């Protein structure tokens, strides 16, 4: 929500108490200056189901009615002749019809004189009861009815329309995808985090099958993509897979270009180019994380042979595949932040996923990736049990020009903190067991 507010230059005020701003709860009261802003949120925020003008709340209906009466100036204008309809609904619960009717009747003090219209009322008044999650408990349909945590009441401003984008970008319906393609909902969230909009330039340095490109270009941005493995972007045939899929979404002309290169040996002529860098870097699990170079140094003799072969002309049907070596994740992460600082315009954002091991993760893991002039502005967890991945947004806060990063082959000295995601690949294939644990169970979550 903050990203969309920033994109459209309006401010939003979250509730004061931390439990009221808990994003896992279904309803949140947010302060906005203008009704227009609420409509923008409904149209662009993927996770917003609907936006209502707030009239009242309470832990009981008595409290709710007191709260609603206090806000009478907000709804008084609808009293004389506005047609209306009530909906009474709950989260994690089903309210019996009879009680729904009783709830509606309890609002009689509002004294609405307009007609009741079920089909096309001028206003919709919604009453929402929030129940805590009782998954896994056997219970009868209406058990616990009336024992809600909070109840909220207000007037519908707009149903969330961004939600349907999740269907539009469903990977299974896409004409080109691979087993590492990012799911639609997440790539939409990431696109919003980048503040993608017409006129913006966005870069994905680990483009793969292009999942981020489709959603960022959908919101109007122009996108560059690169990858060390050109086959992921090309697919088979003409046009290249990523272009074929972009054509499906109508954004082909916004995919600026696709290039095959190693991001640590990138050919960008200068820095401060992009408004955002968005990517899902290879964790080394399904897709090998690679960079150019050799694992083992060649002997002098072999080196000479290789150079001779290289310098003699090759025929066209022998494409050259330069040797690659593994790119360890914590090293890649630090490099990515350095690269972003160089390539982003000041104020630009780096949005990416970082896998992490649940038991070992500390905030410091992400903090220690940073370099001067880069600041974390968001860090949310997608929990898979023994591991998870964090969607991290980093903003470039500096105007200073730094040297182009050289991507040292060795781990730079002075790094003392070992983050949970170091050697993630090895940990993943060992089931995240620590050395002294016995083999008493398997991880139940499968990485799709």
């Amino acid at each position: 929500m903050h990203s969309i507010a920033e994109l459209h230059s309006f401010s939003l005020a979250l509730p004061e108490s931390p439990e009221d701003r808990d994003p896992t709860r279904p309803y949140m009261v947010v302060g906005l200056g203008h009704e227009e802003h609420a409509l923008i949120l409904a149209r662009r925020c993927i996770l917003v189901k609907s936006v209502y003008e707030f009239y009242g709340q309470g832990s009981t209906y008595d409290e709710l009615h007191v709260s609603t009466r206090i806000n009478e100036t907000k709804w008084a204008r609808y009293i004389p002749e506005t047609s209306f309809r009530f909906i009474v609904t709950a989260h994690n619960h089903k309210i019996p019809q009879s009680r729904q009717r009783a709830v509606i009747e309890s609002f009689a003090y509002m004294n609405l004189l307009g007609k009741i219209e079920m089909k096309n009322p001028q206003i919709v008044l919604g009453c929402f009861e929030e129940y805590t999650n009782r998954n896994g408990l056997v219970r009868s349909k209406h058990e616990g009815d009336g024992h809600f945590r909070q109840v909220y009441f207000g007037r519908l401003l707009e149903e969330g329309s961004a939600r349907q984008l999740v269907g539009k970008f469903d990977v299974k319906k896409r004409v080109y995808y691979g087993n590492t393609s990012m799911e639609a909902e997440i790539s939409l969230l990431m696109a919003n985090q980048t503040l993608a909009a017409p006129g913006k330039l966005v870069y994905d340095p680990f483009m793969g099958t292009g999942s981020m490109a489709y959603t960022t270009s959908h919101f109007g941005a122009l996108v560059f993509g690169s990858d060390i493995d050109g086959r992921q972007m090309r697919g088979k045939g003409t046009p290249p897979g990523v272009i074929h899929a972009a054509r499906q979404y109508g954004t082909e002309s916004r995919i600026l270009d696709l290039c095959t290169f190693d991001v640590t040996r990138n050919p960008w002529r200068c820095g401060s180019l992009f408004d955002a860098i968005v990517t899902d870097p290879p964790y080394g699990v399904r897709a090998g994380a690679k960079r150019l170079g050799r694992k083992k140094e060649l002997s002098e003799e072999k080196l000479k042979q290789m150079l001779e072969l290289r310098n003699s002309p090759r025929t066209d049907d022998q494409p050259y595949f330069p040797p690659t070596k593994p790119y360890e994740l914590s090293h890649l992460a630090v490099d990515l932040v350095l690269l972003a600082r160089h390539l982003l315009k000041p104020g630009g954002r780096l949005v990416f996923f970082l896998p992490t091991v649940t038991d070992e993760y500390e905030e410091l893991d992400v903090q220690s990736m940073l370099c001067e002039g880069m600041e974390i502005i968001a860090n949310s967890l997608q929990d898979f049990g023994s591991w998870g991945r964090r969607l991290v947004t980093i903003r470039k806060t500096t105007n200073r020009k730094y040297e182009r990063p050289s991507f040292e082959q060795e781990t730079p000295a002075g790094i003392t903190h070992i983050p949970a995601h170091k050697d993630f690949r090895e940990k993943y294939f060992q089931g995240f067991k620590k050395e002294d644990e016995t083999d008493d169970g398997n991880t139940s979550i499968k990485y799709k």
Partner: protein
Amino acid sequence: MVRLITHNLLACHFRDVQIELREAEFNPEFLKGFMPKLEWKALVDAARQLGDTTLPLEVPEMLDDEFLKNLHHVLLEIHVEEGVMSCPNCKHDYPILNGIPNMLLAEHEIG
């Protein structure tokens, strides 16, 4: 692809090209904002090499509509689908296949 905007940001030269023209959305604000990043001479040379002479040799003082339309066409609507990009710095030729250049460095060029 390989549009001229990309070519300009990678500082290479084109050779043996096959091009296609494709429409793109005109966004004058984007173009104006991007001007400072362009290597103007390289852009004009590349455009002329590909047969487009609409851009002036020097950056004009006023960025009027006609200029921006020409710039838009050159930067975004000319696509090099096949050919070679050669880099004067590392003296390497990068093949362009199906609009995607392969810019992986050879082994002896690293380090």
